[in-house]
């Protein structure tokens, strides 16, 4: 293009310094006395950046032993150590609580945990479905859906705000009292699962919603621009990506749900915690609770490790994808 006379308003002129003489001092001026640092090594230490290696393993082993040793010392040296050991960690009581003895009036904690597992699995499936429905309703924009959208918001506010144990009492005691055919004649386990589903669906629907929001709007545009109707765009493009993004928080909620099946015991259902409670009342020893705790750990720890692995796999996949 042709030349144009430089004027003071022309932005191109701002980039070049005024001609003649040294540039004036300003925030951008280079310090003429600056020298590069002589060394980047911190005196008296090895490299802090490299945490791994053999010395790292030694350090971590020693520190683990010190911490565990200190904790064991506190426990063993405490004035009541013998009493607590007998009350909570008696091998004989733990075994008896585990196998149970109905003739003595207590139930097997080992058998009762199966009820927790069953309640957990059924509740989990129902929660996944109900929570998704609530999340989709709350995400919808159609004017005709306004009433149920408001209802869903109220639902989530309510069940996230009320303590789970109160929901369990309300369902477990209230629904039978209604004396309705069928619904009022269910077992306490059913009412317990119902309460778990109602409460957890409120939480999990928020997780879903975060997942749906995490999928960029441009993905919706891409799907819709190809002529896919809203429903298909959701099903094939948005939802698969949303679910992938929320697997770690979902599993986190399910670890929590596994434990909270113990709360259903307040209705008298013989699940692991209730069985342990009965044992302690019959035999005056709390080792049964230790058994229940160990059984819950056996259930939750694998799920926690599985979650870690999924997160790690996702991280690796994305890193691999970033490479050209």
């Amino acid at each position, binding site marked *: 293009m042709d030349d144009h006379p430089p004027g003071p308003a022309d932005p191109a002129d701002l980039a070049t310094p005024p001609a003649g003489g040294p540039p004036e001092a300003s925030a951008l001026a280079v310090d003429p006395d600056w020298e590069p640092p002589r060394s980047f090594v911190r005196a008296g230490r090895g490299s802090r950046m490299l945490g791994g290696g053999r010395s790292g393993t030694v350090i971590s082993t020693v520190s683990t032993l010190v911490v565990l040793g200190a904790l064991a010392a506190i426990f063993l040296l405490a004035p009541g150590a013998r009493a607590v050991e007998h009350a909570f960690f008696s091998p004989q009581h733990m075994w008896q609580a585990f196998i149970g003895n109905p003739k003595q009036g207590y139930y097997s904690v080992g058998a009762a945990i199966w009820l927790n597992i069953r309640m957990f699995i059924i509740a989990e499936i129902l929660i996944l479905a109900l929570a998704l429905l609530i999340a989709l309703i709350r995400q919808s924009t159609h004017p005709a859906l306004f009433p149920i959208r408001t209802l869903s918001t109220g639902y989530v506010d309510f069940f996230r705000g009320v303590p789970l144990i109160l929901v369990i009492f309300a369902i477990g005691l209230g629904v039978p009292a209604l004396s309705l055919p069928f619904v009022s004649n269910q077992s306490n386990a059913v009412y317990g699962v119902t309460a778990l589903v109602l409460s957890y669906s409120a939480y999990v629907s928020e997780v879903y919603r975060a997942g749906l929001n995490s999928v960029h709007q441009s993905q919706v545009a*891409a799907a819709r621009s*190809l002529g896919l109707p809203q429903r298909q765009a959701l099903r094939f493009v948005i939802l698969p990506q949303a679910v992938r993004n929320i697997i770690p928080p979902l599993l986190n909620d399910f670890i929590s749900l596994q434990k909270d099946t113990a709360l259903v015991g307040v209705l008298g259902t013989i699940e692991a915690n209730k069985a342990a409670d009965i044992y302690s009342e019959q035999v005056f020893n709390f080792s049964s609770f230790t058994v229940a705790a160990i059984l819950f750990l056996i259930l939750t720890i694998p799920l926690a490790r599985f979650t870690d692995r999924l997160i790690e796999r996702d991280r690796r996949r*994305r890193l691999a*994808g970033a490479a050209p």
Partner: protein
Amino acid sequence: MSPAEDARRPPGPPVGGEAIRIEGLHKSFGTNQVLRGIDLSVATHEVICLIGASGSGKSTLLRCVNLLEPIDSGRVSLWGQDVTAPGTDPNLVRRHVGIVFQSFNLFPHMTVLRNVTLAPTRVRRLPRAEAEQEARALLARFGLADKQADYPDRLSGGQQQRVAIVRALAMRPQIMLLDEVTSALDPELVAEVLDVIRELAASGMTMLIATHEMGFARDIARRVCFLEEGRIIEDAPPAELFASPRDERTQRFLRRIVEAGRL
């Protein structure tokens, strides 16, 4: 037509009847008026490039033609039918109007092949085998035959954008809208995408192209429209618009482009 002009004639068959007609199009986002009365007519087989600074309304204009953005007033007609009239099914319109975005927007959880076959199997209701056969042929035509099993993350930007073009073409659109399709690419990857667009133009595809590639616009377009602040300031054949822009605002824009070494 003189021989010199003839050599400059863009590739593709001669233009036909009117494909797109835009009249008095206004669009605001909140208080931000993005389009302030656009009038534009695009003939079948015609390639028109939209140039202008970021924020001048190029992308919004394309999105309005694809009905991705509801318009405030005015009209968009395709083949003589007002598609902005109430009762229009946007999904039916979009089957015939493909759009490709600056940021590719491939579906990251699907392979390249599935990206391309999703809409044909779901919207055109082709049997899967047939859709895959068509997709493979299209991918092969644009040098992507060996990428069909890969996930988008594994591809270069240029390859991803070519897949995005193929994905749009798999719906067999009669019109293609290209929204700054090379702006997110590394410089060495721009050419492979522009080659694909040239091939489309040569095959007679009607295209509305928003672009910052002035040299490309000069080569491929039959007309170039310069947009500023939501209005078409100048609409002329590229030779005319780039060599002797009439409007002062066009002159200023092109001067900046030249200063930046982009023309």
